[in-house]
């Protein structure tokens, strides 16, 4: 059990190798078994992680830590992994979604199945590694490791315009990654200058104190990388293309987990590393997030392609996550992390559902559907449930994250939050309009009349998501309890120096963080 995180992280990579090597027929089974084993191995993390452990942001606050094992000693680069409550939940989201995606892909991927499954598992290692890495260089390696399989999943198994979409995804992400690499390496240098030894550990780098201007530049480098990943308006345009061209499994993982790497990156790296810059840029980022919420929703509203609609809805939802992060208070940031999980579940489920009807009709045009409630009632029920999760109906998971994020950010950025909160209207508009055109109305198209309803396999892979959608709405406390102390500790780091600064500048402290 000493190396549980390493086992969970690299098990998929082993499975990936096995998939690449195994014959076509057995690759699916190998992939599924690997993904399920990984999930099983990750479950103890929930029980082993103890949120009650107190203390400042230090090694103790990360748990199940392995390392540091020296790697590139000259630069202080090590292999160090560990989780806080935030990473814990995202790791579990990843290990839970991967088997779902693998089962869903068995009917949608028909060529080079072994390679597809291999890339999918390789991607899982990349994602898990990015969440558990406590060494910035190790994080960067995992971060880049995600890029390659995703590029191939879109480029080889995607739709007609897949090369363009893959290229676009590649360029956007690469630009961001390189900027981040620059910033990471710069931090190494600054750390060496100030503390006299080389280290790549994120906790060591937290101790670097930088002049405001330098912080601003380095924050910008990280922020661009993460903002592209989120994606934030206006660097979101790779996302709709990537989603529309990607196979169903690729879309689910992309929306479900990959985007969260962006918001997770902000919370783990950009914000605590550069607190002054974070606060200085807060209004700008909150503003862009709010614009993204409304913009994503409005553009989603006018899409004719249901997959593109869901893609743009991600831009809107991730705006809420960003708004919550930059609330700088425990309500907002907890809501934001919660919303990351929600978006993984509800948007993941939406892409799966789009995949279900695409496999039957080979079209994603909304106008090709209508009246499905009559022919495929089970599908329609699930779509309605997920829709209401997505638009934040109280009682389901989406509400908890959305309400906490917006509540939190209202204190910090009232104007941006008012703009962003209008998303509760526009979200209902585009989702319910889509539902009305797909599910309700008369059943006119012959192919829709003959459409078979959800199969047992489809119900099987959707069920875990649906259960969580309800459970996380009715009983959010266990999830919030896991993350809250971690959120508080990161906030102490993000807000501490800024509070000092504010006190120095103003003799009478006003309001401030609670």
């Amino acid at each position, binding site marked *: 059990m000493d190396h549980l995180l390493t086992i969970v992280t690299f098990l998929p990579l082993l499975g990936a190798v096995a998939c690449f090597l195994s014959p076509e027929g057995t690759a699916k089974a190998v992939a599924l078994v690997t993904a399920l084993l990984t999930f099983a191995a990750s479950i103890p993390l929930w029980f082993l992680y103890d949120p009650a452990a107190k203390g400042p942001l230090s090694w103790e606050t990360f748990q199940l830590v392995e390392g540091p094992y020296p790697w590139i000693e000259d630069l202080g680069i090590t292999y160090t992994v560990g989780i806080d409550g935030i990473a814990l939940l995202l790791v579990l989201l990843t290990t839970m979604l991967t088997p779902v995606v693998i089962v869903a892909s068995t009917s949608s991927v028909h060529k080079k199945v072994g390679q597809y499954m291999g890339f999918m598992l390789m991607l899982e290692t990349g994602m898990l590694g990015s969440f558990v890495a406590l060494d910035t260089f190790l994080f960067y390696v995992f971060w880049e490791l995600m890029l390659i399989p995703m590029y191939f999943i879109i480029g080889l198994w995607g739709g007609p315009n897949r090369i363009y979409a893959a290229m676009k995804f590649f360029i956007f992400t690469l630009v961001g990654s390189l900027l981040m690499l620059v910033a990471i390496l710069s931090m190494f240098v600054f750390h060496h200058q100030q503390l006299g030894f080389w280290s790549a550990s994120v906790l060591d780098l937290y101790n670097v104190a930088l002049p405001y201007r330098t912080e601003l530049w380095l924050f910008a480098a990280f922020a661009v990388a993460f903002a592209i990943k989120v994606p934030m308006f206006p660097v979101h345009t790779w996302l709709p293309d990537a989603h529309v061209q990607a196979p169903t499994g690729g879309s689910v993982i992309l929306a479900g987990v990959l985007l969260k790497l962006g918001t997770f990156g902000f919370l783990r790296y950009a914000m605590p590393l550069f607190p002054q810059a974070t606060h200085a840029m807060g209004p700008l980022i909150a503003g862009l997030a709010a614009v993204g919420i409304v913009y994503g929703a409005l*553009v989603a509203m006018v899409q004719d392609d249901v997959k593109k609609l869901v893609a743009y809805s991600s831009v809107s939802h991730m705006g809420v996550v960003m708004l919550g992060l930059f609330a700088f208070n425990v309500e907002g940031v907890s809501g934001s992390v919660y919303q990351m999980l929600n978006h993984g579940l509800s948007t993941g489920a939406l892409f799966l559902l789009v995949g279900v009807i695409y496999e039957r009709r080979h079209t994603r045009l909304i106008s090709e559907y209508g009246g499905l409630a009559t022919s495929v009632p089970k599908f329609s029920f699930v779509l309605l449930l997920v829709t209401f999760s997505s638009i934040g109906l109280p009682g389901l998971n989406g509400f908890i994250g959305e309400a906490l994020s917006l509540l939190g950010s209202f204190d910090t950025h009232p104007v941006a939050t008012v703009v962003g909160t209008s998303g509760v209207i526009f979200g209902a508009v585009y989702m319910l309009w889509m539902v009305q055109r797909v599910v*309700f109305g008369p059943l006119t198209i012959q192919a829709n009349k003959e459409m078979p309803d959800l199969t047992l396999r489809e119900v099987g892979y959707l069920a875990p998501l649906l259960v969580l959608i309800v459970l996380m709405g009715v009983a959010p406390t266990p999830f919030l309890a896991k993350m809250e102390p971690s959120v508080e500790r990161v906030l102490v780091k993000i807000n501490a120096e800024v509070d000092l600064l504010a006190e120095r500048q103003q003799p009478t402290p006003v309001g401030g963080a609670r």
Partner: protein
Amino acid sequence: MNPALLGLVPAFPLFGAILIALLNRKASRVVAGGIATLMVSMSAALSFWTLATLWSSHGALESLHHRLYEWISVGGVQVDIAFLADPLTAVMMCVVTGVGALIHLYSVGYMDDPADAQSTWRFFAYLNLFVFAMLLLIMGDNFLLMFVGWEGVGLCSYLLIGFWYKNTDFAKAGKKAFITNRVGDFSFLIGLFMLFWALGDQATLSFVELKGTLVAQPELVGGHGGTLVTAIALLLFGGATGKSAQIPLFVWLPDAMAGPTPVSALIHAATMVTSGIYMISRLSFLFAMAPVAMGVIATVGALTALFAATIAMTQTDIKKVLAYSTVSQLGYMFLGVGVGAFTAGFFHVVTHAFFKALLFLGAGAVIHAMHHEQDMRKMGGLLSKMKITGGTMLVAWLAIIGFPGTSGFFSKDEILWLTFAADPAQLALFGPEFPLPKLLWIIGAITAAMTAFYMSRLVFMTFFGAHRGGHGHDDGHGHHDDAHGHGHGHTPHEVSPLMWAPLAVLALLSLGGGLLNLPHWIHVEGLTGALHHFLEPVFAAAPMSFDGADSSLELPLMGLTLLMILTSVFIAWYLYVRNPGDLVQTKDELVPDLLYRGSLHKWWVDELYEATLIKPIVLVSRQVLWAVVDAELVDGAVNGAAKAMRRISEVYGELAQTGRVQTYAMVLAAGTAVIVFAFAVGG
């Protein structure tokens, strides 16, 4: 009563909804309806027990409270799944479950169309789910749980309006209702955020704690009349305009009539739409601190009452008349709570639940008997064919027009008098000196006369005169603006006892509901002001004064209103019973064309919203945001970069995958080199 039993009140209908959903098609109309009715009846029994417990304690027992579990706990947000039953809650619980149970029973008879046989289970599951959500709304001990119910009833309304989803118009009506409500919710949420942060360290979402905090430290929200509390009150009221269909968000309610008629009775007349008034009553201590907001509420209420009444005058669809009448009556309730007469406003919620549910169910019986015909021009003379339905409808008619002695008379009159007598300072919309109360009374009295006219018109056109009926329409469609010429089909007949029994009970309540709260000038020990005394502790933290007028005017003003009402009834009688032949001509002579057409076309409000809001937003989204910002601005830049990238990879090799990885590695190396260079220079 053990407070733990409170949890069972919403649990029964939730259980019913789940059970019916699990049985789905295996549950016939009678089985599904039976389960649903039974569950709501159990809730009703517990609700009456709750009411009796509180009532019999004579104020010794302030409220019952039961906490189920911790729901959300993060930072200052500490919210439980917990129920609170104070006198206000208890009365509302009884109305919701009592009227709810009657409507469930009625629905078992109503939903007998063979075309719906496969889906009646859905109807009853939704209906039970609605009662569950409505109970959360009224019993939740905090803002967030109330909001769960608030949106939950919206969900059920959406599902039930679109129950016949194969009809695209109906599905659209459901969507319109949900989205319009979301506009209100947006306002509500902002108000809630403001309130939460205003409290600082005392932040709470619990109603009881909030009341304690605000009574002790009104300065937290800026004190009495402060800007902050006014803004909060107005934003929360914004939420109420959505749910309770007031100007400017009333447009969804008339369309909501697309749902089956029992749904209109339960959700869109008796219960859900009164949520806004309930919310304001629940937060009376907060609203009372904001006189400007109170002025806005009273004014919006009065104007909505008048505006909706003007539309109801000319509608020919029986359900549309009732829908606008509901909007209008809700306006009265807002007028009541707006002037600070919380008990009077809430009293009207109760009596209106009786007579409006009855009117809708009666209309449903007529529609059922006429095989989905909703056009009053094709009715007439039904009293002789449907004696029980007709008789009960006449009782409801008397109640809604405020005929002396009926429940509606007492509640409406109390609102009107307290409006007239309200201290102008407590609704200081146009300053404390402006005689806003008197002005609002005039609007209210005129609306009362108009109500008497259009309701008499409805009753006369439907039940009196000669039967003008053709046969019914089987499409369940509600819009028949052009007259179809066809002969007589089925003869309308009285509905089954399953349907008329609830009508009879509601008729008794509509008639005798006034006993709940007899006015001070009828002295009966234990009945005079009973509701007022019972609710007193709830509104104690919101003291209001009603000495803005000489109390000797009370009875003369009532007499004046009564005279106006009787005159209206007479005019309606003259036009629709005495002289029905020259209906059209009379109308032309009496009313200017523009007024008539304006009323008939609902003053083109839908068209206005369509042209000024919906169309421009869609157009800008499609033509500017998507086509220009996304495709041209952002992607234009990126595609340029992509082309350059492709050039480079063409130079270094073919477009095979290995080429990309090489490019990738190369760029990576180049980037690193740049950094090293940067460090070397920067030192």
